[in-house]
């Protein structure tokens, strides 16, 4: 093969990679936070008895989950301006990832909501809470505890999706890695380090979620 690994060029630009990683994490954090709020509302809509509430929510989840996220990213950035919606690349990507996260998290939350016994709602009503109060103070916290394991894998998968922002030149980790790759020609080294950073971040995220899971575990 005659290829000797030389990481010097990658270490010289390591700051760039770290800045990219920071931006990836920022994109993920903001989008997942918005997506979680959206997903929670949609999950309540999905479990609603009224068809007028349930059907639009189900339509949203079905459409988004069956579209490739890259098509959504390109659509938002290149096609929406034709409708007069002009967003910066970061805003446009956050918008897309939020809507995308919303659909996936809604499914996670819906499964959680279905696992909660009806007696809790009845008990809440009996002590005079309104349905909204019951959702906010009883059902949502319990549901979140129950779904933590699948929530964790969804969050990690959504974090990895931030790499698609590179397609519209958002300077996150994948984009920075590509840039270093082109400038230095240290192809193997660049991709090894970039993947390493992703893998490490995912492991840290998984470990953090496991700690939260253990702390919040319903005592038996």
């Amino acid at each position, binding site marked *: 093969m005659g290829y000797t690994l030389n990481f010097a060029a990658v270490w010289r630009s390591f700051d760039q990679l770290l800045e990219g990683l920071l931006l990836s994490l920022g994109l993920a954090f903001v989008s997942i936070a918005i997506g979680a709020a959206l997903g929670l509302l949609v999950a309540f809509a999905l479990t609603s008895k009224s068809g007028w509430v349930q059907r639009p929510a189900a339509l949203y989840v079905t459409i988004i989950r069956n579209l*490739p996220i890259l098509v959504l990213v*390109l659509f938002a950035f290149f096609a929406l301006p*034709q409708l007069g919606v002009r967003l910066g690349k970061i805003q446009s990507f956050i918008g897309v990832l939020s809507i995308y996260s919303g659909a996936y998290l809604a499914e996670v939350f819906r499964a959680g909501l279905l696992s909660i016994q009806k007696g809790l709602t009845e008990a809440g009503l009996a002590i005079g809470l309104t349905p909204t109060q019951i959702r906010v103070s009883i059902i949502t916290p319990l549901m979140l505890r129950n779904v933590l394991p699948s929530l964790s894998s969804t969050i990690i998968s959504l974090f990895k999706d931030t*790499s698609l922002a590179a397609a519209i030149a958002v300077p996150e980790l994948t984009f920075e890695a*590509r840039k270093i790759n082109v400038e230095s020609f240290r192809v193997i080294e660049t991709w090894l380090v970039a993947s390493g950073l992703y893998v*490490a971040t995912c492991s840290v995220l998984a470990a953090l979620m496991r700690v939260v899971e253990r702390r919040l575990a319903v005592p038996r």
Partner: protein
Amino acid sequence: MPMASISPFLDQLWIARFVILKGLGATVSISLLAIIVGSLLGVLVGLALVYGNRILRLIVRAYTDFIRGTPVLVLVLASYYVLSTVGIELGPFQAGVLALAVFCSSHVGEIVRGGLQAIPVGQTEAAKAIGLTFGQTFAYVLWPQALRQFLPAWVNTAAEMVKASTLLSVIGVAELLLRTQEIISRNFMSLQFYFFAGLLYFVINYGIERFGKYVERKTAVPS
């Protein structure tokens, strides 16, 4: 969209029909190849994770964790650029399919592992008690039950692969998304043609999703 813009879009769609069909064909062949190669590899990964000795398990675990921790786009880019650097001359198509197959193998591996581990130990013990060899136990007792467990998840993975095939556009593989971008660069109808591409992807994936639900019903253990 104002009504006036529908007719020029249909004209452009007619002009681009063969380009779109070619892209669709590429998307389908990329996905099929990735699923077939990835599943074969994935079954091996799953078997190694369950039945391998300590060293093999460690190596395969590291492989799946590494692949699952890396975004698919990074796998695609790395596969394309790294392989040519080390002297393996693969075109973007082959490199891209390889990356997707590797990605698929890590998912299928975990699905197979989960399916096999969900079977109670008593089943293996019972098989041993009636004198079956390990091979027979696996073929007649474990595998059929695991298959039933993982078919629905496997169909989902197929839909994932169709979605992931769009990433090959980034390394210049002329699948549906790149063909769509080419068409848009000629007629500037980004709204209409991205929408149309989205519609095609939706139809394919929704079909796979329905098929998955059907398989789930068919393979469910009657209760």
